[in-house]
C-alpha cells in the first residue's frame, strides 16, 4: 500500500488575473478522512477538479495512489473516484442504466451488473433505480453520484459537498459509508461547508481561503491554535448580551446555533463583561469553560488570522505529510 493516497504539492491555477489556487499542498494517507474547508470561492472545487484531472494546473504536481500523470489527458487511475459539485447523469436513462454505462466505460463487463446492484443497495436507491434520472431530486442525484463512485471500488475518494442536498437521514447514511470506507483503508477527501459535519467526521483538515492553504493538520491541532480562553454563556437576553460584548474591551462573542454565546476573553475581561451584564439587567444563567468550536476557528482563519496561522499549519503539516509539503 502507498504511504500517501494523495499528494498534491504546490498546485497553482490562475484564471486570467484571478489566482484560484496558489501553491496549495494537500496530502492524505490511506484510511484518512480528510476535510477540505473554505468559504465560497476559496478554491476547494477547483482543487478537486485539478486532482481529478478535469482542470489543468499551471504549476505543481499531483500523485494519486502513488501514480503521477499528465492530468490534462491521462485517465483517472483505477481506485480513484469521486464527484465535484452536484453529480450529473443522462436524464433520459434510468439510474440503473446510467450506472451500467459507467461500468462499461470503466471496462468492466461481466461482473458489472452485480456491482451496480450492490452500489444501488448501499446508497438506498434500489426502488428508484428504474426511474429516469430526469425526474430525480438533487438528493437522489447526489446518492447516484456516490453509487457511481463506489462502482470503482475506490481507494481514494473525492466527495464535494456530498450531503448538501440530502435529508438528515440521507446525510447520516452517506457519512456512515464514508467512515466505513475509511476504516477499510480508503482515503476520503470530503469537501464541505458544514463545520459540524467535518468536525464529527474528519481526522484531518485542510482549510483554504482565497486559493491558499491557511491550515492543514489534525482537528485537535486546529483547536490548539485558539489564542484565548473560550466560555459558553447563556443569559436571560442573549441578543442584548451579544451587543454588549461588542463594546467590552478584550471580549469577542459569537452566537452559536443553539442560541448560546461563545465568549472569547481572558479572565479580567470576562469579569468586567459579567459585571456589565448584571448592570444592564441581563441575568447570567450559565457560564462555563468551553472547547472552541471549529466554526469560530474557521471564521478566524479565513477572516483574520490567515497569515498568523499559516506558520502553525506548516508545522502541523510537517507532522502529517511528506517533507516537501511544508516547503
Amino acid at each position, binding site marked *: 500500500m502507498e504511504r500517501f493516497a494523495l499528494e498534491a504539492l504546490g498546485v497553482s491555477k490562475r484564471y486570467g488575473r484571478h489566482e484560484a489556487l496558489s501553491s496549495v499542498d494537500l496530502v492524505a494517507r490511506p484510511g484518512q478522512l480528510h476535510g477540505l474547508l473554505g468559504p465560497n470561492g476559496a478554491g476547494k472545487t477547483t482543487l478537486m477538479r485539478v486532482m481529478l484531472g478535469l482542470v489543468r494546473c499551471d504549476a505543481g504536481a499531483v500523485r494519486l495512489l502513488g501514480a503521477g500523470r499528465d492530468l490534462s489527458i491521462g485517465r483517472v487511475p483505477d481506485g480513484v473516484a469521486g464527484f465535484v459539485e452536484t*453529480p450529473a447523469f*443522462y*436524464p433520459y*436513462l434510468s439510474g440503473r442504466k446510467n450506472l451500467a454505462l459507467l461500468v462499461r*466505460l*470503466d471496462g468492466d463487463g461481466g461482473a458489472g451488473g452485480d456491482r451496480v446492484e450492490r452500489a444501488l443497495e448501499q446508497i438506498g436507491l434500489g426502488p428508484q433505480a428504474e426511474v429516469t434520472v430526469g425526474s430525480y431530486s438533487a438528493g437522489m442525484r447526489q446518492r447516484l453520484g456516490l453509487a*457511481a463512485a463506489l462502482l470503482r471500488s475506490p481507494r481514494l475518494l473525492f466527495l464535494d459537498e456530498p450531503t448538501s442536498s440530502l435529508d438528515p437521514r440521507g446525510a447520516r447514511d452517506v457519512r456512515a459509508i464514508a467512515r466505513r470506507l475509511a476504516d477499510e483503508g480508503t482515503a476520503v477527501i470530503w469537501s464541505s461547508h458544514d463545520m459540524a459535519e467535518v468536525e464529527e467526521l474528519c481526522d484531518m483538515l485542510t482549510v483554504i481561503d482565497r486559493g491558499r492553504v491557511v491550515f492543514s493538520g489534525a482537528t485537535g491541532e486546529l483547536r490548539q491554535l485558539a489564542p484565548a480562553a473560550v466560555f459558553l454563556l447563556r443569559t436571560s437576553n442573549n441578543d442584548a448580551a451579544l451587543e454588549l460584548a461588542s463594546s467590552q474591551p478584550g471580549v469577542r462573542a459569537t452566537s452559536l446555533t443553539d442560541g448560546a454565546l461563545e465568549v472569547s476573553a481572558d479572565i479580567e475581561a470576562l469579569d468586567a463583561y459579567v459585571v456589565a451584564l448584571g448592570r444592564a439587567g441581563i441575568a447570567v444563567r450559565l457560564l462555563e469553560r468551553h472547547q472552541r468550536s471549529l466554526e469560530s476557528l474557521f471564521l478566524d482563519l479565513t477572516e483574520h488570522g490567515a497569515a498568523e496561522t499559516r506558520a502553525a499549519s506548516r508545522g502541523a503539516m510537517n507532522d502529517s505529510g511528506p517533507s516537501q509539503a511544508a516547503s
Partner: protein
Amino acid sequence: MSIRGVLAVTGVECTKLAAQLKTRIVLAACVAGPFGFAAAMRVQSSVPTDTLFGRSVKESGFAIPLVVLGFGALWVFPVLASVVGGDVFSAEDRYGTWTTILTRSRSRSEVFGGKVLTALGFSALAVAALAVSSVAAGVLVVGSQPLIGLSGELVPPSKALISVALAWVTVLPPTLGFTALAAVLSVATRNSAAGIGLPVVAGLMMQLYAFVDGPETLRQLLITSAFGAWHGLLTATPYYGPLLEGTMVSATYIVVCLVVAYRMLRRRDIGG
C-alpha cells in the same frame, strides 16, 4: 489511447444513441421517406423535370434513388451528418456530464476517439439506410426497368443497380466531412443548436456559391462540390476527376476538423 478504450466509449455512445428519440426518428425518416417519395411519384401526373433523372422516375425504379441522392445533397446529407456529430460533444455540456465520464477509466483521447467513431458511424448508417431504402422503394414501387444514363444510353438493371450503389458510396466522404465539421463546432461552441445548425447553414452557403461567379479553385475547395461527383459514374464513358478531387477535399475537411477538435478538447478545463 487504446483501441479497447475507444471501443468501450463507442459502445457507451451507441447505447446512448439507441435510447434517444431523435436518433430513432432520423433513422425511421431515412427508411420511410423514400417510400413516400416513390409512392407520390407514382400517383401524381407530373415529374420533377428540373432534377437529374427526374424525368425517369416513372420509367425506372433506379431513377428514384438518384433523385433522392440529388435532393439529399442540398441539405439532407448535412443534416444527417450533424444530427449526431453536432451534438455528440456538446450534449455533455448540456447535461453537465463531462465530469462524470472524465472521472472514469478513460482518457480524453479515448473519449474523443469513441465519440468521433460513433458520430461517423451514425452518419454512414443514416446514408446507408437512405440508400437501401431508396433503391428498395424505387424497385418495389416503380419497378426494375432499365435506366436511361446521362449520355442517353440505356443501362440494364444489373448495371444500373451497381452504378446507383457506387453513386451513393461517393457521397459518404463529404457526408463524413460534414460530420467532422459538426464535431469541431460541437466542441468549440459547447452548444448543440450551433453544432447541428451551423454545418447545415454552411452547406447551404456553399451550395449558393455554386451560383455565383467566383474563383474556380475556391469552388473546388468547397466540400459540397463532392456531392455532385457521382454524375461522372452515370455517363457512357465514366469520368473520375471530380470524384477524386471531392474525396481529397472531404478527407482534408475530416482531418483538419478532427485535429482542431481534438486539440481543443484536450486543452479544455472542464467546468473550471
